[in-house]
């Protein structure tokens, strides 16, 4: 029965992927890519990956679609009907690579096998040692923030660098647009948005601080927190949104998150332990782990939220400066 549900969702993914290849209308392609992300998130839930499903739904189905639509408004809606240089050669190469890969999967252990090499070494040791070393229920958060903290530090720096990259490519001094357009244009949307935005912010904070006890954590919380600002900017105009948050402050905050993460590591080093060794942060090592994880996830959440806000506002103000209506 489970295998049937897996096959149905995977077949839907295949159908969406084939539709993306064939369609020339880029608006439909971007929407289908959002559907693809949401179907993948559903599949991740079936595979017991709650944190990953949360992140994929927020990022792949939410932010990615939004950014592509904003870029699409500046580049043009339809792909030209001309085809590529040599489509048959590309098709042949793709079929050959696919055949090689499928031949390579025949030696893999079947999915769900508890004795496969993936599931018997380090992964399972984390499940056994988390209650003793760190004592939080969400093992994924423990591994992400503590056991594999270096990788997460690299990831936060990558997000920060992406924010800098987008700023370097697309930043323009914003036009001083007039204030909020008249209320009677979008009454229903504005009323509902005003009801929802505080709840979205609160939910983002809940996901941030509850990430050790259930699915959640810094990334998902940052994206959810930023999406409240996107909603406000889309409905009330970019000028009104700029009055709500100061872009200089957001840029400072994006660097502050990385600084918090690095400082936690430096404090550990100054106390004589290794970089990012949270046992040094308090007298009791388990308390030290808890402090370290909270601070580190806070840094991640702050950076992710501010970088998402920076990217969206930079794209929107570029689109506005070109003269398209927002």
């Amino acid at each position, binding site marked *: 029965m489970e295998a049937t549900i897996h096959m149905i969702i995977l077949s839907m993914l295949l159908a969406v992927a084939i539709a993306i290849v064939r369609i020339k209308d880029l608006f439909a392609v971007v929407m289908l890519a959002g559907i693809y992300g949401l179907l993948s998130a559903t599949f991740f839930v079936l595979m017991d990956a709650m944190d990953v499903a949360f992140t994929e739904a927020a990022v792949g189905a939410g932010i990615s679609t939004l950014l592509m639509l904003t870029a699409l408004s500046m580049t043009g809606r339809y792909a030209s009907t001309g085809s590529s240089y040599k489509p048959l050669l590309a098709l042949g190469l793709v079929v050959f690579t696919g055949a090689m890969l499928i031949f390579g999967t025949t030696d893999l252990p079947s999915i769900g096998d508890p004795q496969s090499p993936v599931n018997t070494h380090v992964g399972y040791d984390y499940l056994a040692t988390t209650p003793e070393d760190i004592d939080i229920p969400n093992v994924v958060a423990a591994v992400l923030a503590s056991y594999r903290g270096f990788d997460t530090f690299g990831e936060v720096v990558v997000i920060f660098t992406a924010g800098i990259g987008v700023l370097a490519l697309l930043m323009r001094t914003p036009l001083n647009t007039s204030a909020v357009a008249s209320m009677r244009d*979008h009454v*229903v*949307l504005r009323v*509902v948005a005003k*009801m*929802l935005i505080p*709840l979205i912010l609160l939910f983002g904070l809940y996901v941030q601080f509850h990430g050790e006890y259930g699915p959640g954590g810094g990334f998902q919380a940052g994206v959810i927190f930023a999406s409240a600002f996107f909603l406000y900017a889309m409905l009330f105009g970019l000028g009104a949104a700029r009055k709500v948050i100061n872009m200089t402050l957001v840029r400072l905050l994006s660097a502050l998150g990385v600084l918090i993460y690095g400082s936690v590591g430096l404090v550990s080093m100054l106390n004589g332990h290794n970089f990012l060794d949270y046992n040094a942060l308090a007298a009791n090592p388990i308390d030290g782990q808890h402090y370290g994880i909270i601070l580190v996830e806070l840094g991640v959440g702050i950076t992710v939220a501010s970088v998402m806000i920076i990217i969206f506002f930079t794209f929107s103000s570029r689109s506005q400066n070109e003269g398209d209506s927002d």
Partner: protein
Amino acid sequence: MLTHYLSWGLLVLGGFLCVSGAIGLLRFPDFFTRMHAASVTDTLAAGMIMCGLMLQAPSWIVFAKLVMILVFILLTAPTSGHALAKAALHSGMKPLLPDSKHAQGGL
């Protein structure tokens, strides 16, 4: 026992509404009627499924969370349908009325 059968009835009804909404999305002649089918799927079917799950909730905290999700769905799904219809009307699409000569295709 009654809650068990009631929750299964609500879940099956929600599933049927999902399927009928999907069929409507494919078969209706006009954008606005199709959007109505999608909006019904979003609001009513999801609401029925939530109510069915609420009757099966194992603890009060799960029940409270499901109530909050239901309120959120009831608040946002009709709004998104409204936003779609408003955008379509704003971009010039006219509804298919019984006396109009041609159907508004596309989208």
